[in-house]
């Protein structure tokens, strides 16, 4: 089975994140850039499938600027065989729809049986990409998986819903997006980190993919961020120390705010 894992580099959600004043895009230069957390779970799932099914390959696919190379190497240190990096100056300013166009073109070239990705990215929180890709490629999308079973070419997932869960099936080729409930990602071993340095990373430009520069980046974007502002930080209100009456005081506050 040929597996491709989509890995996005994002600014660390545990630190302060900013938009750039000049063009309202994510300030990646000042951020600590990391692998989107959900994508680590997608990587782990791919490696487990590879371990269970002999003859499988796992390829990482990233669209992102030069510095995304660090995340690609980090992903490779977990165990995948190689990576493809879509890298082109004309990609700056690409929106979700444009990203799906570029990644779909790359996937057409790679012809995977199975695409694994995160259910959402921590910066965009879009949750739109897997279905956009499926729509463009005409393949099945099994999204929001908390469990994935592979039986030959038949895939089955459990998808968490508000009411419980759904069991959804599809045949490969397919895209499966995963939540963090699906597994526990491995830590790269020392050997893995050393090996990652030598693994092949193919760089592709928009021209390589047959996507014209005006279909991506600023030129192709169908959405724009017109302005941004820091949200005023919440200020601390009243803080009381429990002296035996803390619960009562809490309720008095709730009553004064008409919640009780």
């Amino acid at each position, binding site marked *: 089975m040929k597996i491709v894992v989509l890995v996005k580099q994002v600014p660390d*959600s*545990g630190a302060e*994140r*900013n*938009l750039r004043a000049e063009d309202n895009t994510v300030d990646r230069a000042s951020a600590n850039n990391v692998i989107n*957390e959900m994508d680590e779970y997608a990587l782990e799932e791919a490696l487990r499938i590879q371990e269970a099914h002999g003859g499988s390959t796992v390829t990482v696919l990233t669209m992102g600027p030069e510095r995304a190379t660090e995340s690609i190497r980090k992903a490779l240190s977990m165990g995948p065989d190689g990576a493809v990096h879509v890298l082109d100056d004309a990609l700056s300013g690409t*929106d979700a*729809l444009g990203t*799906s166009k570029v990644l779909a073109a790359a996937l057409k070239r790679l012809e995977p049986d199975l695409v694994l990705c995160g259910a959402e990215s921590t*910066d965009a*929180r879009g949750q*739109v990409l*897997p*279905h*956009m890709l499926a*729509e463009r490629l*005409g393949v*099945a*999308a*099994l*999204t929001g998986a908390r469990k994935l079973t592979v039986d030959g070419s038949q895939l089955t997932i459990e*998808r968490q819903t*508000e*009411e*419980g*869960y*759904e*069991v*959804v*099936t*599809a045949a490969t080729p397919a895209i499966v997006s995963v*939540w*963090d409930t699906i597994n526990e990602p491995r830590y790269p071993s020392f050997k893995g980190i050393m090996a990652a340095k030598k693994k092949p990373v193919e760089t592709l430009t928009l021209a390589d993919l047959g996507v014209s520069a005006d279909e991506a980046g600023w030129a192709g*974007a*169908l*959405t724009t*961020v*017109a302005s*941004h*502002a*820091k*949200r005023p*930080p*919440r200020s*601390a*209100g009243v*803080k*009381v*120390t*429990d002296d*035996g009456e*803390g*619960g*009562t*005081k*809490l*309720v008095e*506050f709730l009553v004064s705010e008409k*919640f*009780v």
Partner: protein
Amino acid sequence: MAEVLVVVEASGGTVKKVSLEMLTMARALGTPSAVVFGDAAGLADKLGEFGAEKVYVASGDDVESYLVAPKATVLAQLVKDVQPAAVLLGSTQEGKEIAGRLAVKLDNGVLTDVSALEPDGTATQVIFAGSAIVKSKILGGIPIVTVRPNSLTPVAAPVTPAVSNLDVAVGDADRLAKVVERVAEAKGARPELTEASIVVSGGRGVGSAENFKLVEELADLLGAAVGASRAATDSGFYPHAFQVGQTGKTVSPQLYVALGISGAIQHRAGMQTSKTIVAVNKDAEAPIFELADFGVVGDLFQVVPQAAEEIRKRK
């Protein structure tokens, strides 16, 4: 005025609150039309009460037995037919997924997690764990946006809706992901997490699954939904479906009560836009106090039972 299509979210024959919020939002943009996927029985009255002049219904096996794709196909056809001023969907997993497919089909931009939409198409989004607000716009197309639950208060504007059935003409590409089973997991009478006007959440400080009864008790006294931090769900104190935060649900209730939660940035990402925040934590330095309107520094095993008792007394 042009129609505004509102894709209805419903569960067990009841319209979800986010749908009423979207109908209210839609009225400022045009004439609201509701789109129902699946069984519409009993929904039309409620949708009319909140201003839906039309209710379009698409039901049947093709819509209900496959994941997302058929819904997007039906919706894309409807958009072509009625040329709406905007399409609003809930910012839920399925709402975002339909929106994504619709955007590709129509080659139209899409904006997710929108909390306000102005008649000129300018959308407001709160991003980065609630630390920034952006104004965005879709260029040269119709606003296709997903609306964050609890972004506005639904206001009734009763009309009698005209209900019509939509043709469901889907292709093989829409029938690739088949839903073979729907399993209901135990769900009490509590309101749904993202829709609740009050949420009471417990964290690692609650200590065990057993002790979560304390969180549930306070929640029930307040008519609230129960939430949990990731530390609590990871430790098995409470099911994952109730996790609040960056990798869980985003909630925006009138009141959020955090019990034994430190207030890590990833937790704040899911609750920072709550109107009022109350915290109980025994560590006076816990970051949750930086955003709490009312904080009690104390042991939750003392404070919560006392609060519960006090509410009972006052009722």
